[in-house]
């Protein structure tokens, strides 16, 4: 069982998020915009074996459930439906903190096939934090009715992560989703998301700051993503990092002035 909160006085991040990994093999996060059928996917995968409650210290609904695939146990955590991970509402903080600190073995991003454009924003944000992403283009039946075609293979090629079209309501595509999640979680497949490139100024700033972030934070959190948040001046995230990494291990990362890049971004 290893060290616990009682024995060390410190919570490991996974314990803090209460996603205990001792009785399951992989932890899978489920992210997506509101109204994309995320909960339908969740219910279809986990059936009735699920627990609901609140996230620790937040009045944000939390649901988790298990499923078994090829004798491995998967724990699926339903994250709040959000458009973004960066605007700092309680929902978004929960989703961001989970992906960032609990580091799930894979994250499923559920997209609405009928308005991919708006949904891809969240997918790109998740892919900036972690490469272990499977994109699930849901409501494909609805899209067909609206004469919208989604080329999953092309999307997968452009994004650099596995993509599957699903209609969770009728179970279409879900076996393939489970297979892809298992590939990513077990590291048989290592997705390589296309990095988002920013303006020249910003890239120069990242190049200067990233090595220092890497020195301080190690490999626990994607250093490029964290560098971007530092340039953003995201103080709430810094606070969250201080809370979540073991006390004393974090040194102040930046002091002094920061330039305003908000218009160039």
């Amino acid at each position: 069982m290893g060290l616990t909160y009682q024995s060390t006085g410190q919570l490991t991040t996974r314990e803090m998020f209460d996603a205990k990994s001792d009785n399951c093999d992989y932890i899978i996060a489920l992210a997506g915009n509101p109204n994309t059928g995320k909960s339908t996917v969740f219910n279809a995968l986990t059936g009735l074996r699920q627990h609901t409650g609140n996230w620790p210290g937040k009045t944000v609904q939390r649901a988790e459930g298990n499923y078994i695939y090829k004798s491995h146990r998967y724990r699926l955590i339903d994250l709040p439906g959000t458009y973004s991970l960066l605007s700092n509402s309680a929902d978004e903080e929960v989703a961001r903190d989970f992906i960032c600190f609990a580091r799930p073995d894979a994250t499923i991003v559920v997209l609405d096939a009928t308005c991919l454009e708006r949904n891809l924003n969240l997918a790109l944000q998740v892919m900036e934090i972690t490469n272990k992403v499977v994109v699930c283009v849901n409501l494909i039946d609805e899209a067909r009715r609206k004469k919208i075609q989604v080329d999953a293979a092309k999307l997968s090629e452009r994004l650099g992560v596995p993509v599957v079209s699903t209609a969770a309501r009728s179970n279409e595509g879900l076996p393939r989703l489970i297979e892809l999640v298992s590939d990513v979680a077990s590291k048989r497949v290592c997705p390589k998301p296309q990095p988002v490139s920013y303006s020249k100024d910003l890239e120069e700033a990242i190049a200067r700051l990233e090595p220092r972030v890497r020195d301080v934070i190690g490999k626990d959190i994607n250093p490029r993503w964290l560098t971007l948040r530092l340039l953003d001046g995201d103080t709430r995230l810094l606070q969250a990092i201080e809370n979540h990494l073991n006390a004393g291990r974090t040194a102040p990362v930046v002091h002094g002035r920061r330039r305003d890049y908000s218009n160039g971004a």
Partner: protein
Amino acid sequence: MSDTITLNCLGNGSIALVKEVVAEGLTRRRLLDLGLVPGTKVEVIRRSPVGDPIAFNIRGAVIALRREVAGKVLVSPWG
């Protein structure tokens, strides 16, 4: 190009293209995350009885914005 007005000045049923988001900080982030980037088509769906907030169709989702927030989005009427 036609005149630039703010999003809260549009009448019900009218359509406009986003020219610029002048909000800053988290409000700016939020508006951009909702899909209000320059060039986006926005339709005014309806207003609440007191005129605030206003419901917009933004990239296929109906989203209500308060007057003060909508006032930070510059648009040009379309069509």
